[in-house]
């Protein structure tokens, strides 16, 4: 029986690449995204490549939607072996005095609260299975901070501490909880905003001399689902070309 992975943000750059990587390894992938069209595109690509995938919609900030999603996946497949919480984003770059409360909440909710809601819903299933892998997504900014991204940096730092706590809570049930922390990554969302000059300057700051590709991140997410990482829990795996 094939393993089942639920990936939020599965329609995006890193989430889509992670979905492809896991599907290529024979894992059945549930591509969940706020943007159903994006999830559907990834599902189709995976199916064309010979993998197994489903596309579902979810707004991870809405507890009711999260519950419905997990119930649906549980009914369809009977288990969830891997949860990758990749939905997130920084959305704004502005000084703290310009951030409205609503904007602050939006960024905290999609990154941190969404991760909490998904984990809360999936953990009981994994506890019954006595196994499971949860992989959350932080950012190098969760460690270094990033000027003009106060809520994003706070949310990502929050995810790192949340991951460590959940890892301790779920270890007795054989469930591993880790974080992947991407550095600058060539996702359509980032590349759309950045000038070629800005990109070049960024490259010069990175020891490996290039920004990350979604596929680089996908390998790290996949590694944390494999038997090779069976004794790693509560850790943050930085994939950033040596930036940090």
């Amino acid at each position: 029986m094939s393993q089942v992975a639920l990936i939020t943000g599965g329609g995006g750059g890193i989430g889509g690449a992670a979905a492809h990587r896991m599907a290529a390894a024979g894992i059945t992938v549930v591509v969940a995204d706020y943007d159903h069209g994006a999830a559907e595109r990834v599902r189709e690509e995976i199916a064309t490549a010979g993998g197994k995938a489903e596309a579902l919609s979810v707004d991870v900030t809405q507890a009711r939607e999260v519950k419905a999603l997990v119930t649906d996946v549980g009914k369809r497949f009977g288990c969830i072996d891997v949860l990758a919480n990749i939905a997130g984003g920084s959305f704004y770059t502005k000084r703290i005095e310009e951030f409205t409360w609503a904007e602050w909440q939006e960024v905290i909710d999609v990154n941190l609260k969404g991760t909490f809601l998904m984990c809360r819903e999936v953990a009981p299933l994994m506890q019954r299975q006595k196994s499971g892998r949860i992989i959350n997504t932080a950012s190098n900014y969760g460690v270094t901070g990033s000027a003009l991204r106060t809520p994003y940096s706070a949310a990502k730092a929050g995810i790192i501490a949340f991951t460590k706590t959940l890892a301790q809570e779920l270890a007795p049930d054989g469930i591993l909880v880790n974080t992947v922390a991407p550095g600058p990554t060539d996702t359509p969302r980032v590349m759309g905003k950045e000038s070629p000059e800005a990109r070049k300057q960024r490259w010069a700051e990175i020891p490996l001399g290039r920004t990350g590709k979604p596929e680089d991140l996908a390998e790290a997410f996949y590694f944390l689902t494999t038997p090779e990482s069976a004794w790693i829990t509560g850790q943050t795996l930085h994939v950033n070309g040596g930036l940090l």
Partner: protein
Amino acid sequence: MKLQGKVALVTGGAQGIGRAIALGFGREGAKVVVADLQVDKAKSVVQELQALGAEGWAVEVNVAAESSVKRLANETLGRFGRADILVNDAGVYLKSLVVNMSEETWDRTININLGGNFLCSRAVIPAMRKQKSGRIISIASGIAHYGAKEFAPYAASKAAIIGFVKALAREVGSDGITVNAICPGAANTAMPRTHRSEEELMARLRSNPLGHVLEPEDFVGPVLFLASDAASYITGQAINVNCGSYMM
């Protein structure tokens, strides 16, 4: 196979975690240079590699002696023409309270554990630079972060390895060489047995959130990952493989 045709040097490869890594590399198709002060034990690891159908070669090395390390690098390059992976695992674990510690105990630990990382890395980097690729993986320790009573030089050497790894990663990144560390949690090897009773050791080894006793083989997966193409964008990191005994 993840490492088909690659040439890997494993210092401290004659026993414990180093031996497990050497065999793991062999299973993935690498040609493995088992480098150790205890060459007879290294030779028996080579026999195990051959039994797996892998190519292995035992070389005697003192990682704290410049000439010995130079010879290791020259002979490896002479024989295989390249060096793709270096695992710095050779080390010693000497017990003493700081107030009672001889300068000899301090120097020996730092020279072998930390100096060995420097000498071995320096020796293979020119070949890796020419190849425009390479993987250096140092075996640090959870003790780097946690400390350990009566093992101050060991803790200092392992924390220093992490600093060294981060600095070296910045120096050689532009040549396509990655440098990372693994921080094993306390494991069921010969090393801690020199200082603890069997009962005390097993209780200690089991006291982690996953309740699993780490064996040398448990570190092979993460090392293979770092050595493989899958980890080509990961450098300067210290990855904790410790069953959640501490989290960073």
